[in-house]
């Protein structure tokens, strides 16, 4: 199964068209003046191959923003779990986002596993797209070791001059390429080009912050009283953007939406944000995290401290979305740098 294929750029239009005919094809497209979003495409001209991380990560296909999970009829005492999935090819997923999907897979397959997520995931085929250079200055994928793919895809494409080299990682990926009937096995020349590019990448991507990856966990573990949380407290607006755009944030709320006949209704799961004030509020009005600084600290701990204890893995992919989206310019790189300074 493991093999390398080549696709010449001249054939890219044809490639996209054929992919779109097989099943729903989703790829990065331009959204607004400077942003990108994953959306359905049918032709190569819709696709932005050169894109910075999309506004929302591909997690929206695995756990949609609003997802009906139960439908009911009260009088009939009828309750039905809604298990919906759609066959999708997710094209052009950067390696940082592949890591994000891997994190979510861990969480949702942990017991008790989340059938809604798992059923969707089973029918999503992932074609990754490697970055040969940095997207922008917000990325920390070098530090987090996500500038290269560490699995989590069916096919991975690497752009090299006049062609793409495609790594086939799963049987599903192999079958899809078989159906397209247009890609050939990679020749020695293509493999040399690939190796050359990977070598160059070693120089381009360096840890963006002066710390070893394994030191991040102890750094955060000891940072509960750090002053940086006070200064973040002053700056943060609690808008929730940083968590909604994060590829590894998965918190949700479930809302009951009843019809006007007050009998039929549905339960809808909606993304929630730990940055909103009511998130940690309980009955009686007590709030476990009433302070904005404390809420931000919690967000960071959920990336660099707690998941490491539970899954032995950092839940920050280094995609830079949280810093990119923050109008208060709270920046993940600067936060970590300040913590390092404080510790000295």
């Amino acid at each position, binding site marked *: 199964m493991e093999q390398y294929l080549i696709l010449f750029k001249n054939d890219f239009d044809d490639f996209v068209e054929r992919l779109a005919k097989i099943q729903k094809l989703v790829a990065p497209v331009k959204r607004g003046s400077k942003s990108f979003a994953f959306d359905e495409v049918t032709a190569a001209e819709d696709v932005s191959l050169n894109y910075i991380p999309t506004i929302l990560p591909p997690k929206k296909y695995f756990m949609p923003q609003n997802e009906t999970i139960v439908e009911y009829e009260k009088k009939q005492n009828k309750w039905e779990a809604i298990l919906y999935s759609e066959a999708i090819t997710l094209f052009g997923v950067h390696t940082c986002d592949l890591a994000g999907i891997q994190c979510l897979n861990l969480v949702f397959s942990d017991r008790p596993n989340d059938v809604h997520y798992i059923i969707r995931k089973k029918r999503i085929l992932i074609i990754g797209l490697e970055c040969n250079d940095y997207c922008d200055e917000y990325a920390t994928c070098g530090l987090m070791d996500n500038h290269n793919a560490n699995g989590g895809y069916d096919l991975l494409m690497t752009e090299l001059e006049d062609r793409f080299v495609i790594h086939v990682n799963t049987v599903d990926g192999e079958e899809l390429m078989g159906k397209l009937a247009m890609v050939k096995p990679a020749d020695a020349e293509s493999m040399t080009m690939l190796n050359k590019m990977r070598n160059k990448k070693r120089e381009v991507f360096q840890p963006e912050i002066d710390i070893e990856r394994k030191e991040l966990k102890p750094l955060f573990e000891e940072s509960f009283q750090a002053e940086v949380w006070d200064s973040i407290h002053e700056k943060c607006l609690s808008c929730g953007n940083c968590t909604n755009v994060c590829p590894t944030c998965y918190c949700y709320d479930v809302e009951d939406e009843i019809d006007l006949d007050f009998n039929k209704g549905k339960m809808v799961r909606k993304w929630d*944000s730990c940055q909103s*004030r009511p998130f940690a509020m309980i009955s009686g009005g007590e709030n476990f995290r009433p302070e904005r600084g404390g809420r931000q600290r919690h967000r960071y701990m959920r990336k660099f401290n707690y998941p490491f204890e539970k899954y032995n893995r950092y839940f920050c992919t280094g995609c830079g979305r949280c810093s990119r989206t923050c109008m208060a310019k709270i920046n993940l790189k600067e936060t970590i740098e300040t913590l390092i300074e404080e510790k000295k």
Partner: protein
Amino acid sequence: MKRKTVAFFDFTCCEGCQLQVANFGEELLDILAAIDVVMFREVMSEKSDEYDVAIIEGSITTPHDVERIKEIRETATTVIALGSCASIGGINGMKNSFKLEDVQSYVYGEDGKNYFETIPTMAVHQVVDVDYFVHGCPIYPPEFVKILKYALQGLPYTVKDEAVCVECKLNENECMYEKGLTCLGPITKAGCNSWCINYGNICYGCRGMVKETTKNASIDVIKKYDIPMDWIMGKFDMYNKATESEEKK
């Protein structure tokens, strides 16, 4: 469940929020199946002095308004404030930035001003208890239906105390700040599904502010983006003047 009788009332406003309800289309039929409308000036001529639910549009701006709203409160078991004028004072609150006498002579002229008594603009809850708030200028129809369902079941409804940005991000809009524009989304209460931004406009803050208005942080952002302070204060005041100093609902 016995259908509740519902009456609509308007105070100082443009009646645009009632118009929103009248314009619901098919959904209105479902609503009318669930309630018994006994008074709704924009769509019917019948009147009634008895009702379970009073839906109030508009702000309280005259001594007569105060008397009238108190009577309504005594009659109704449930009071719903409809639209920003009723829920936060809204546009009418701009009056509170000026001296009352100046406002009176500006509007009615030196001769007319003594015939019309006026008081500072108040939201409905600043005079009587309000059970449900439907924010927005105009109201966002799906939210009105949602709140009506809560009211008819007698369940408490609280507008989630989070920013419009939350909904805006879920709709995957490009942020206005990214486009070099400014937007009141981060300090405005969600619930409208980021209505304006979805259509390419900025948020004007029509739903009122989140509880924890982060003043220092907001000023910081304004400075960072080189936005003139009086411009933003003008935007704040446009909807929020009447309730600026109180605990937000």
